[in-house]
């Protein structure tokens, strides 16, 4: 069994497992008919779509399977960020003191899922919205800009979150 | 007490949806309209959840769940359509 074929099988199993998990969450029933039908459906869809669901170039299992403890922790961290940034935004709405600017920087995360999560986290944190994500290059609109230096801006915008996400997908 | 809270919240969400529709109709550029539409989808989602808790029916929450997951697909289609139309206009 060569490497490519084994990677196909692993992706197929992961996709089917994920689909079955979603099926269980959505139907929320443990009747045998529902369980069997869900298994057949998820295996069939997994066989058809595993090449789309997990791309060929993500050739490492570490890039896909997250660390569950850090993932749950990160969920709470993100909720805290959400409220903190809303209070900052509230002040900006009533005082009107903003200095908008577009900054570009690169990320060192390698996994596609981790980059997507990083882009979404940047949108949630204070005064920044991701405008474009192209491989590892991010374009961010920053409402409270106070620096002109690209590296300093990247550190201010994504520094903490990139370290957290680096723990989830090492 | 909880009924009063939920009732107030429903009225607040309805008024917010009305304001979003005003922005949607006023917006000078299509980007403004899309921003308003984005917020309108969030308000609709919150309204479905509050309504489901108020009437004690799980059906509303199932609808909200599907709307939550597939809501932005329609959104992506609108953005793509506007972009295509804009690039056609530049070529002609």
């Amino acid at each position: 069994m060569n490497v490519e074929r084994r990677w196909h099988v692993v992706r197929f199993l992961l996709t089917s497992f994920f689909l079955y998990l979603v099926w269980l969450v959505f139907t929320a029933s443990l009747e045998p008919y529902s369980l069997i039908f869900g298994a057949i459906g998820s295996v069939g869809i997994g066989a058809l779509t595993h090449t789309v669901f997990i791309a060929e170039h993500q050739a490492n299992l570490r890039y896909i399977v997250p660390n569950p403890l850090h993932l749950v922790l990160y969920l709470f961290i993100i909720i805290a960020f959400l409220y903190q940034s809303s209070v900052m935004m509230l002040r900006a709405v009533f005082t009107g003191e903003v200095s908008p600017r577009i900054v570009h920087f690169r990320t060192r995360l390698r996994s596609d899922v981790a980059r997507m999560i990083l882009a979404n986290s940047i949108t949630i944190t204070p005064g920044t919205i991701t405008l474009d994500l192209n491989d590892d290059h991010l374009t961010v609109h920053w409402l409270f800009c106070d620096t002109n230096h690209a590296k300093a801006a990247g550190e201010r915008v994504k520094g903490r979150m990139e370290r957290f996400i680096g723990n989830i997908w090492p | 007490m909880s009924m009063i809270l939920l009732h107030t919240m429903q009225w607040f969400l309805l008024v917010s949806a009305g304001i979003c529709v005003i922005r949607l109709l006023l917006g000078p550029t299509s980007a403004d309209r899309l921003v308003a539409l984005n917020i309108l989808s969030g308000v609709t989602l919150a309204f479905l959840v509050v309504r489901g808790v108020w009437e004690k029916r799980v059906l509303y929450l199932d609808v909200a769940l599907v709307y939550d997951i597939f809501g932005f697909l329609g959104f992506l289609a609108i953005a793509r359509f506007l972009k295509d139309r804009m690039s056609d206009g530049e070529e002609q």
Partner: protein
Amino acid sequence: MAVREWLALVAFASAIIFGTAGMIGMFRFPDPYARMHAGGLLGTTATFSVFIGSLLLAPDRATAARIVIIMIFFLISAPTGSYIVGRFTWETGLPVWKPKKRRNITDKEQEK
């Protein structure tokens, strides 16, 4: 009056504050990007607060479980919606609005 109703009252009150500020910001800022910041971020927080309040008032366990799933998916879908709008705005080539800086005026006055 139970404790969870007080907590729900706090959650709904914060939702009303954030939601009102979002609506004001959506009409006050002059530029789609800044409107996206105000409306998108504050709208997300207001909706999330409504979910927390509804979770506290949920009548049975099936409702509560569904609300938790909706909350988790909302944390993924709301920024994705903002990202779609942001990329659309960026690709149409809209310039970023900049406020008139007081510092530049004072610099010129100092030069004179």
